[in-house]
């Protein structure tokens, strides 16, 4: 009897852990990750298993697994994770033939952007407030107590914006927001929800594709690219050096960068990383981008932000 149970258990473990050819760890959006996996398997016949979570959870799992890595390909929503992994020597250098039209700032030796998110003002058009055009508008009396912003410690996009503000001497905008009663509300979703329900009028430093997705579902919310400029958050894809299926992993990167893969990226309102894919939304080339040159370290940027908002 005991042997039977043992055999059954071992058998069950073997089947459930059956090796798909590659394992992909991806930060959201989940529908994109799922469709990319589906399309990849359909095109190449290579199976792929997906673990999907936030960037933070993906990184925590990678860290806890580092004695015995499981993932082959990692897709993160934060470019900093790629540079950090690269510095630690964890990444397999790969230049995909499909990455030729990806601008240089969206690729390194070991990472290439899957797509790009823009940082915007998300404004509820039914809030009864005037439509904002620039960041500083949200510090005006019309928006008193009506603005939320994601915590830069939890949201990579907000962090990049605060970093650029710090580099360009624009932190007075943040001080104006604080004086106007803006509140810091967790990660991106926690900041957007009160705006959708109307508790707040606008989210400062929202994520464009989430806001556009909500608008496409019929929510009365608009994504506004501020006139003084904004920042983008490229989503790096990387192959881990520890991967035992490196050839298959490279094919996955190729697929995501193919016209077909990039159209999947565009379907969830992200900007494709390839400049030769045309979609109906503002693209990287259409945006005025703030430089981050001369920005202090992450700790100093966050400490500066805390100093204003605490």
């Amino acid at each position, binding site marked *: 009897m005991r042997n039977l149970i043992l055999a059954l258990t071992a058998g069950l473990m073997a089947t459930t852990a059956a090796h798909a050819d590659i394992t992909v760890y991806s930060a959201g959006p989940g529908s994109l990750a799922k469709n990319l996996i589906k399309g990849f398997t359909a095109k190449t016949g290579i199976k792929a298993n997906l673990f999907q979570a936030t960037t*933070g959870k993906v990184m*925590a799992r990678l860290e806890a697994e580092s004695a015995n890595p499981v993932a082959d390909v990692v897709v993160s929503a934060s470019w900093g994770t790629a540079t950090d992994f690269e510095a630690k020597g964890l990444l397999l250098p790969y230049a995909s033939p499909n990455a030729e039209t990806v601008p240089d700032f969206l690729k390194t030796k070991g990472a290439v952007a899957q797509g790009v998110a823009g940082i915007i003002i998300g404004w509820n058009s039914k809030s009864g407030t005037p439509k904002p055009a620039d960041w500083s508008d949200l510090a005006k009396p019309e928006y008193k107590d009506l603005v939320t912003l994601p915590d830069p410690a*939890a949201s990579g996009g907000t962090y990049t914006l605060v970093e650029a503000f710090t580099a360009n001497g624009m932190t007075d905008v943040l001080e104006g927001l604080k004086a106007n009663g803006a509140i810091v509300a967790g990660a991106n*979703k926690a900041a957007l929800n009160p705006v959708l329900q109307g508790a707040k009028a606008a989210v400062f430093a929202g994520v464009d594709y989430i806001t556009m997705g909500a608008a496409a579902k019929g929510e009365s919310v608009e994504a506004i690219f501020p006139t003084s400029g904004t920042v983008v958050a490229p989503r790096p894809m990387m192959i881990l050096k520890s991967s035992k299926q490196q050839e298959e992993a490279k094919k996955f990167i190729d697929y995501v960068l193919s016209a077909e893969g990039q159209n999947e990226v565009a379907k969830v309102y992200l900007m494709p990383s390839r400049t030769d894919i045309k979609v109906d939304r503002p693209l990287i080339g259409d945006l005025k981008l703030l430089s981050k040159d001369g920005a202090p370290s992450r700790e100093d940027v966050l400490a500066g932000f805390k100093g204003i908002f605490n």
Partner: protein
Amino acid sequence: MTTGAEGSALLRWIATIGLMVIVAIPVLFIVIQAIFPNIGSGSFAAPFSLFLKTLADPELIGLGRNTLFLGVGTLFCAALLAVPLAALRALYRIPGALIWDAILLIPFMIPPYIAALGWIMTLQPRGYLEQLTGINLAPLLFSVPGIMIIMGLNTFSVVYFVLSRTFETIGARYSDVGRVFGAGQWRSFWRITFPLAMPGLAASLLLVFAMSIEEYGTPAALGRRIGFEVLVTGIENRISEWPIDLPGAATLSLVLVLLALAAFMVQRWLLTRRDYRIVGGKPQANDKRDLGVWRWPVTLWFAFVAFLATGLPILAILATALSRTISGGLALSNLGLDNFQQLLGVGSDGLVALGNSLALGAVTALFAGLLGAITAYSVVKGRGRLRIVLDGLSITPNALPGVVVAVGIILAWNQPWLPITPYNTPFILLLAYICILLPQPVRYATASLHQLGDNLEAAARVSGSGPLRAFWRIILPLILPSMITAMILVFAVASRELVASLLVAPVGFQTIAVFIWQQFDQGSMGLGMAMAFSAVVITTLIPLALISLLKRLSHGNVAGLN
């Protein structure tokens, strides 16, 4: 003094090995992680380097103080809500008593982070309450007392169920004796019935305290807005914000565990000072008193608390699930079944996730219930120093945030030298759930075992049955009512567990909570809430069906099920 109640050696071994594998190993790896920051990649370099740095962080005092404050405040709110209701329920005939029991079970079925979201959707400016009545209670919601009240509402049912069963077992017999000797109704309750209920009260309040210092969703959703950070949110930040700080999170978790163990020692001290054994024979006929003129006020009070704890969050979840868009509000034109159609569509991910979670929940409930009963038995009726270690181990997971248990489990079970591992299979979720939820059945079983005299078991032993047989035939049936309640809780909580699932779920495996979270992440609040609503309904109906089936099978012989 040998009473024949020293327990079975086999059961003690099962409890010890079970707790070692399920609790001690992951906890050990968390301790190792706290000490050796690079253990994840197999290196023992730089021991204690980050440990002291984290402990020296001036923020830690604030986090610890807030955590204690929140735990005590929540415990206070929960006791205030639960004790009067439980006493009334156990000692008097309450109109619709069974219905109130069923309704008060539901707060367990609602994941706390969903309940918190429901409250936010209801009470925030232009939320459902303001849309319907024009009243805006946002200042109360986003305040420290607000967090305590909401967490009290989420957890008081633990106290209500344990205490109403305890009061019921005590019955009116003892206070009747007091009345005969001339004490008034109140006096005999406060001097006799209430003190006898201490084991149940202390055990359930300890659970509430541990649950509230370990709870992440509510403090994160509400506290962050007002800058109220606790240890758990500090831990979660270290695990989910770049750069990841696993050693820091592990160190803070150990502080949290120390807090819970301190509470556990206080509870032990309370319980060992006196003798609470009141069950010395077969169950007594239980005649409850009539409420008389208080019939309607008491019923109204039950209805009010049930509405706050269950009705309001459920209505908020349902309203969001029925809304086509959030910005459309509660207008009739904005309401429809679209989200439910999408959720329950043929071959949808939602159905797969539901099936996975319900199966995992049921298996977790069975294993955790059995291991919990055996552990509690070894602790209460066993001898020797080991039993205190077992008891301490069994409460430890209650103080560990799920996300930290998950990290410990990955560290322990993803070692390259393991010949076979449950990691990356659904078994790993089973291990995680049993670990996180084991404290519930252990506490429940401990409370009822403390009231069980040794003479019953001794009688069985004298009549020739071995210790194992005495456990199966005498002890287990007597504590079964409490165990069933505990297993229902385990089932409900396991089927909607979020934080550990997010981290250790095998690749490609979906559970209810992961599905809900992914919908929220994509901005499909309505679809997520539709899943939450369906999950609450299903996890409520299954236990209720089970209880009525058991009642029919046992012909009402099992005390506590009526």
